Structures are given as C-alpha cells and as structure tokens.
C-alpha cells in the first residue's frame, strides 16, 4: 500500500475506488477479518497484511425490505466470504424467488449515484 496515507479504513476505501476488494490478514494467526482495523480483533496483534479477496462467499442470511409500490423490494444480505470474514451487502440480478441462504455469490464493485465505489455481489457463475 505504498503511497497511500491514512488508516486501514481509508486504505481499504482507496483500494475499492481503484477496483480492488482487499481484506486484512493477521500474519501470525493467519486470520482474515473485516471491517479493516488497526489490530487483529481479539488478539490485538498489529502485524497485519493486505490480501486481495477472492470475492467468493455464501449468503449467510438475507432479508427483503419492502418499499412503497410500485418500487420493488430490495435485499440486504450478510455474506460469509471464503476467507472467513463476514460483511453486509446487496446481491444484484436476483429476485426473492431466486436468492436463497447458502447460495454462492461473487463480489463486484459498482459506482453509487454519488460517485463512490460500493461493494456488491452477484450469483457466482454469472
């Protein structure tokens, strides 16, 4: 992360804006965690490294939030990444009928209306 200043959160966001989905790994334990921190949660170990995420994971849980018709419901999902870390996101290109807990998904980076990068998911295999 040469040339990037700021804490782990700023570094993560800068990488995402660059099209990279990073995760932190504690060198000693090998544990991968999210969100980014200045130390490994639970041990306090500060010897950390960035790795590029495979982007693959499964839907651990999901909910569909109703909106005022005719706007369709949108999903909020908790994704368990293959590396072991977990995060909240949204799965694109799915419906309440097709998306299910346990389904494999793959990360993709999109741009929000305000121009900021956002981490989303889509069914793996697309």
């Amino acid at each position, binding site marked *: 992360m040469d040339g990037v200043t700021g804490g782990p959160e700023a570094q993560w966001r800068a990488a995402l804006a660059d099209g990279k989905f990073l995760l932190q790994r504690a060198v000693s334990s090998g544990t991968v965690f999210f*969100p980014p921190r200045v130390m490994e949660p639970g041990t306090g170990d500060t010897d950390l490294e960035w790795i590029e995420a495979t982007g693959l994971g499964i839907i*651990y*849980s*999901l*909910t*569909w*939030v*109703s909106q005022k018709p005719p706007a369709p*419901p*949108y999903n*909020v*999902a*908790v994704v368990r990444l293959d590396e072991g870390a*977990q*995060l*909240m*996101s*949204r799965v694109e290109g799915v419906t*309440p009928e097709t998306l299910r*807990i*346990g389904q494999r998904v793959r990360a993709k980076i999109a741009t*929000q209306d305000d121009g900021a990068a*956002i981490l989303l998911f889509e069914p793996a295999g697309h």
Partner: protein
Amino acid sequence: MGGSFPRGKCAIAGLATFGVGEAPGFTSMELTARAASLAVEEAGLRIDAIDALFICQPDDFFAGLSFAEYLGLSPRFTDNNRTGGSAFMSHMITAIMMLEAGYIDTALIAYGSNQRTNGGKLATSIKTNAWDAPYKPLFPLSSYALAAARHMHEFGTTREQLAEVAVAARQWANTNPEAFAKGPLSIEDCLASRIISSPISVRDCCLVTDGAAAIVLTRTDRARDMPKTPVPVLGAAAATWWNSIAQATDMTTTAAAESGPRAYNAACVGPSDIQSVQLYDAFTINTILFLEDLGFCPKGEGGRFVSGGTIAPGGSLPVNTNGGGLSYCHPGMYGLFAIIEAARQIRGEAANQQGTVDVALAHGNGGTLSSQATVILGSTATL
C-alpha cells in the same frame, strides 16, 4: 465464569411506571421525573435521598446531567450508558457494585419517552454503521429480520411460530389494565399483516408508545426498614458480542447465552427455578432466541416451544406477563419495564399475578441483538 456478584445484598425498594401508552403533552423528561418521583415516594424517601442517577433517554446524550439538574440533585455519580434497551440491567449492575462498596447509598434508575404522542416513530439518533449503511437495512428492524431468516433456515422455525409469540403477548395484555394494545389477535391476523423486512411483518414488531419507569435501589438491610417489602437482586450479568449483526459469526445465538449462565451462577439458581420470565421482545424472534439462550429450551427449539400457547396465559411457562414490548408498551427502550414486571411478580402486585413468585428473571436486549443483560430477582425468602 468470572466476576463475583453480591447475591441479594441490594434490593429494589421502590418502583413505578407512569404514562404508559399515551401521555399527550408531556416531554420525555417530565414523564421520567414523574415516574422517578413515584418510585422514590413508594420507597418512603424524599428525592434528595438519591445520591446516584442512572438514566438513558432516547433524545438526550447528556441525559444524566439533564436529569440531575431537573431533579435539583448533585449526585455522587451519574451514568447514561448506551447499550440500548438493556442499559437498565447494566445500570443495576453498576449501581449494586457501588452500593455494596459503600460509594453510594441510594440509586435511582429511570427512563421515559413521549415518542408516540411526539411523532409516532421510534425516536433514536442511533445510525447504522458506515460499513452497513450503503445497503440500507432498516434500523434496527432488518437486523432482527436477518436473525429470524437464519433461524428459520437452520431450525425450520416458521412465521406461525413467530406469530405465537405476538398472540401470547396480546393475551397477557388483554387482562393488564395498564397495557396499551388490547383486543383479539389471531395467528391468522399476524400472518396476514404486511411484511416490512422479510420475514418480519407488522405484527412481529413491538409497539411505539409513550411511557416512563423508575426504580430505587439500595442495600437490602436498609430496604427492610422501608415501606415496601424489598425485592433483592440475586444475580445479574451483561454481555456484548457485536454491534452490527453482520459481524455475528452465529446469528442464531446471542450474548444472552453468556449473560444468562453468569446471572444464574451469581444467583445460585437455574432456568428451572425461574417462575416468571420477562424477556425484551422488541420483535417476536427475540422471545424465541432468548428462551433458547437462557436455557428454557434447547437451541433451535424455540419456535416449537412457543407453539400451542406454552408462554401464553394458562401455558406452562409464563413469559412477559404484562404483555411485553409487543402489547404492553415499548417507548423506545423497554428494559426497565421488564425489570418492573419481574419485581411486581415477586411482590405479588402484578396485574396478571402468577401466584407466589420467589424467583423472576428480566432479560434486556440492546442494539441489534448486540448487548444482552440478565437480572434475576428474588423474594426475601430466597436470601
């Protein structure tokens, strides 16, 4: 287990609720202070006997300071911790440790909100964290929906079983004059209600009401000389496992699985000794999760456990005998109301009194199933 607790050394000497349901024209602080005044009076004290204040208001981050000023007190200690609706159970732990150490003599724990008549929505300035916010989960509802969806996936829990919790709460409320939501409510009514964030529907959600509550805590030996029979605190414990539900490695087990056993250990009782169970039911899934985590049924069996009226009037385990947050009242934070119903059952003063109750449990939940705190109250016979 860690952590020693002065079993039974401190007791609830006074308690009160005020403005439960709708209290038009009152500010939150007025409701809180009125409940405080009634609780202090019941303990046979004047307000200037209070030397420690514990409060957590919906709309005031400096509530401890505002409360001291409002009451005209200069307390030795004020605390407005922010663990959410479980704050009041945590307050009890802090107050009891300070009472036992002799740092304070008389603690007042209070809460009040006018959120129903002043807007009609959950009054909170708490926001979803920066990692979760871009995905627009409803705060806090979608987090509970995620837990419910996972519970259904792992254990086959059904919406009918969630509805059983709401129906049982309503049945208790129907015979509690103080309860806000009354009238018939069927499983079918619940299933037909609008989905907000699947699988949670309108009827799976707690009320939005006004209401205030307060308790006075002091050392049990002193409380014995006060007008009301003391309600000793046998054990209490708090636990925090996460803030965001996205960080729950096991979304179907809450930190109640830690706070419960630690509280039981302190109180020298187990789940089978509990005669009255008050659980923080912000959503119907809460009751199911906490029944499991507090040892009233095995993990995953909560849905089947509540089926057929087990926790309703006439069932084998009286749960939320006031009607709970689902049908009694929920002015944004419910923890103190659960404590008061447990104490009323011990005193023999509850609207739905369950005979002689010697051991009662009140469990608080805060945030998005984040903070869990369990308090076990006893009669003086248990000391």
